[in-house]
Structure formats: structure tokens, C-alpha cells
């Protein structure tokens, strides 16, 4: 499994809860690694063990940790590039949702070897979306919920997002876009972070 996934979990737990929490979680997971490198591969079996250890140390369900991790990726300054790469998906939040089918492909373009679940998006009723995620890593849907919630904020869109559990082997996410101009759009310029973007 790609080191970026492990590195993200490590950065999230260390930045938000402190390095000692991460150290305790790693100790509890009984893995032969204490810190992860973004650009190395690790045994996929490590991830569920680490996540379970984090849940115990942080005293909250794994699903909540993953959701918060998704939001952290978009909102934390250390990962400004993730927010920008997501904004390439579309000029509105709805366009972004429609671009999610391309997410695994785009991710592979960015970092070869970083495999994400297949994502399939439908809009059966206008502004009401169903997102299916199929494949490893399990729990990806929860991280995606947190990430999309933060992106909706970023676009200034009011949306209701819910993880509806697993249906036919896929994680199912429901998104209802309530209002597109609810808040201020943080903005996005193709020219890059150097150009002014709303804080």
C-alpha cells in the first residue's frame, strides 16, 4: 500500500492530536514501523491495525477518524496542494462531484502506484447525488465524506453528506446540494498558490 496513505494518517494524528498520541497508537499496533515515508510502499495489512490502534488511543470510532482525516486534508495548510488538485475537478461543487469518476485515474496520474477505490457517481434527481466506492482501502468512503464536506465549504456550497453504509460490496455516499451560493467561495486560480486565494 502506498506510503502516502500511511503518511497522511500519521500527519493527521500528529498534527491534530499530538505526536505522543501517534507514538502510543504505533506502539499499540505492534508494527515494526514507527514513522512512515510518503514515497515508500508498505504492507497493506498495516493499515487496519494502525486504524484500530488510533481508534483506541483517540477513543472514537474508525469512521469518525477517517472523516476527520478527509476534512483535514482539505483544510490544513500543510496539504494545500490536495485542495488545489481537487479544485481542478470543476468550477462548482456539483461539477466536482461529477468529476469524481475520474478521481482514481487522476490520482494515478499524480502518483503512480497510489491506487484508490473505483468511484461511480450518479445524479438520479437534480442536485441529489449517489456515490459508490468499490475497492481497497476499506473505509475510503468515510474519508471521502469528510473531504467532500470540506470541499463544499471551500466552494461556498451548502450540502448534506451521509455515508449510507455498504450496499452490494460498495460504500455508498449520499450528497444533497442544498444551496450553491451559501457562503463565500475560497476561490481557485489555475496560476497556482502564488496567486491570491481567499483565506
Amino acid at each position, binding site marked *: 500500500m502506498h506510503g502516502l496513505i500511511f503518511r497522511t494518517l500519521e500527519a493527521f494524528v500528529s498534527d491534530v492530536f499530538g505526536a505522543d498520541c501517534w507514538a502510543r497508537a504505533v506502539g499499540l499496533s505492534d508494527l515494526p514501523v514507527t514513522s512512515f515515508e510518503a*514515497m515508500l510502499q508498505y504492507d497493506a495489512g498495516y493499515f487496519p491495525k494502525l486504524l484500530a490502534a488510533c481508534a483506541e488511543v483517540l477513543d472514537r470510532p474508525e469512521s469518525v477518524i477517517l472523516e476527520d482525516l478527509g476534512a483535514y486534508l482539505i483544510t490544513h495548510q500543510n496539504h494545500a*496542494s490536495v485542495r*488545489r*488538485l481537487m479544485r*481542478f475537478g470543476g468550477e462548482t461543487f456539483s461539477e466536482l462531484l461529477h468529476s469524481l469518476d475520474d478521481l482514481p485515474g487522476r490520482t494515478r*496520474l*499524480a502518483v503512480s502506484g497510489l491506487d484508490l477505490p473505483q468511484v461511480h457517481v450518479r445524479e438520479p434527481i437534480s442536485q441529489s447525488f449517489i456515490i459508490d466506492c468499490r475497492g481497497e482501502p476499506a473505509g475510503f468512503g468515510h474519508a471521502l465524506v469528510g473531504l467532500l464536506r470540506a470541499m463544499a465549504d471551500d466552494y461556498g456550497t451548502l450540502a448534506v453528506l451521509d455515508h449510507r453504509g455498504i450496499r452490494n460490496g460498495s460504500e455508498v455516499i449520499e450528497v444533497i446540494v442544498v444551496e450553491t451560493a451559501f457562503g463565500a467561495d475560497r476561490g481557485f*486560480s*489555475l*496560476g497556482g498558490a502564488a496567486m491570491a486565494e481567499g483565506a
Partner: protein
Amino acid sequence: MIPATDLLLALRPLHVCVGPTGHIRQVGKSFVKLGIDDPTGCRFLEVFEFLRPMQPATMADLRRLAGQVVRLHVRSEPGIGLRGLVIDDQAGGVICDLSFGIAVVDAVHRFGLTARDFASSDLVMELLFLQEAKSSAMAASFSLNARLNGARLAAETEALTDGLTGLHNRRALDGALARLGQSDTEYAILQLDLDRFKQVNDTLGHAVGDAVLKRVAMILRTHTRQDDLVVRTGGDECVIVCPGLTDPTRLSALAGDLIRDVSEPVMIDGQEVSVGASIGIAVSAHAARGDPQTLIARADVALYAAKRSGRGRHLFWSPHMGDSLAELDMPVSAARG
């Protein structure tokens, strides 16, 4: 069917229609971002400068470029290259359809372009995405490489250092000798052995012995130059390699200073400790070039000769001593200690 000019406006954000007189009749919507407000009516060749394949001077020249890929730039923005195709409009004029080549990344920065400035079918968004994603991934890779390199340097230093004294170890000596063996640099080797160290260790304990060794290491470092290699080769034995230093007077002075300072009694843990030192010196000018091991052996022979002749002194190797300890007329064990 939609008229051709409307079709161009809808599909091609960077096109230029040029009339038979060489004046611009219509441009795509994105030129305004390039600082060209409304060029209609201006002479096409006054707004744009062609670079390749040739520089047309007249409308006839321009029409001859039909069907060819051209490279040009807006005269007011020479840094941003454009490329495109010239086609004959069958009415005496030409249509020039342009795009940013690889300059698109610079152009986006320079002009603050947005997705709407490009045709929807254009792959430019994917290109920009990739460019940005690649930069992030490269940054992560570079940071990993930097950390690994730091760890490698630390491990290398550790592998070449004696843990107790911080002097270099035998592995570092072997590396330095191998390099000297292949170079033309003349050098000297000093073999130093402490006198009465074993008694200190036996009677006052290893902690005091270690303190003595650290103090000796400091003395050796103080008296040697930056380029000299100071090595602890074992127990109380050290080797100093001095590249470029073969003058016997200076080497004698160095050996004398070392022996004097090492022999100075010192208080350690409330006890007066006194050791001495003997030194054997060999200089590369006397040795067969390219064989540092011979030189090491000769310095060793000179060291034992110095010990035999009363300790607390230094001797240069000379041919009458021979090339190995076996040639000295004394048992090796008697010289140790």
C-alpha cells in the same frame, strides 16, 4: 448550419480571422486576457510576430503558409510562445488558429487564465493538473531523498569513527591509505603507542583508562592539521596520517610535542595519572610508491625500536631496521606495554 465565424467564436478561444487586406476581422474571446483589447481593424502582422517557419511580410506570404504549423507570439508578450495552423479562408484572407504550446503553464501564471479561457475539449486542464501534481510528488520525493541522505551520512560517519574517542577508526584508515596509495601525494605516518597504559587500566580501572584515552585523543587533535587523519587503531595505539608533510624537522617537532603533552601527569578522579608515549615515523618518499601497507609496517618497526631504546621518544624508520618486526632482534611481546 451555424455560420463559420460563429462556429469559430464558439469553439476556438484563440483564433484570428484576417481579411484580404491583412487586417484582423475577428478574434477569439481569450485574446483579451493577453492584453489585446480589441485588435479588429489592426494589421495582423503588426500585432503578431512570426518566428517559424518564416516571417511573412505580405498577405501573399501569409497565404503561402496555409496548411503549415507556425510559431509566433504577440508582439507585446514575446515571452509567451504560441503555435497554430494557418488556413486559407477561400475568400482572399486566412484564419489562424492558435494555442499555447508548452508555454501554457507560464501563460496561466502571466495572464491569470481560467478554465473558461480554454476550449472545453482542450486537455490543458489535465496538463495543468499533472504539472501541479508532479511538483507536489517531486517535493515529497526530494524530501525523502534528503532525509535518507542525512541518515546515510550519519551512518557513514558513525562507521568511520571510534565511539570512545571520536577519532577515526581502522576502516577510515584503510580508506585513506587506499586513496593515498593511488595518488602522488607524499605523506608521513606516525604510529603512537602509550607507555604504562596497561598499568593505569589494571590499577585505576577502565573508567580512568578511558579518560586517559579521551585526553590523548584531544591532544592528538590539537596538534594535528585539518587534513591529517588521526586514527585509534586499537587499545592504546593510534596512527596519524599527514598528507603533504614529509619534512623530518617538522615531523620531529610534532612527535616531540605529542610525547611531551601526553606525558604530562594529569589528575583524574582525584588521582594523579601518568602515562607516556612512543612514536615511530615513516615517510612515503622512502617507500615503494603505491604501497601504504609497507609504510604502516615501517612506522610500526620504528615504534618498537623507539620503545626498545627507552620509551618516551620517537624514531624515524631507517633501512637498517628492516621492513618487519621479525627482523628486529627482540621478541615482539617484550616491546608491548
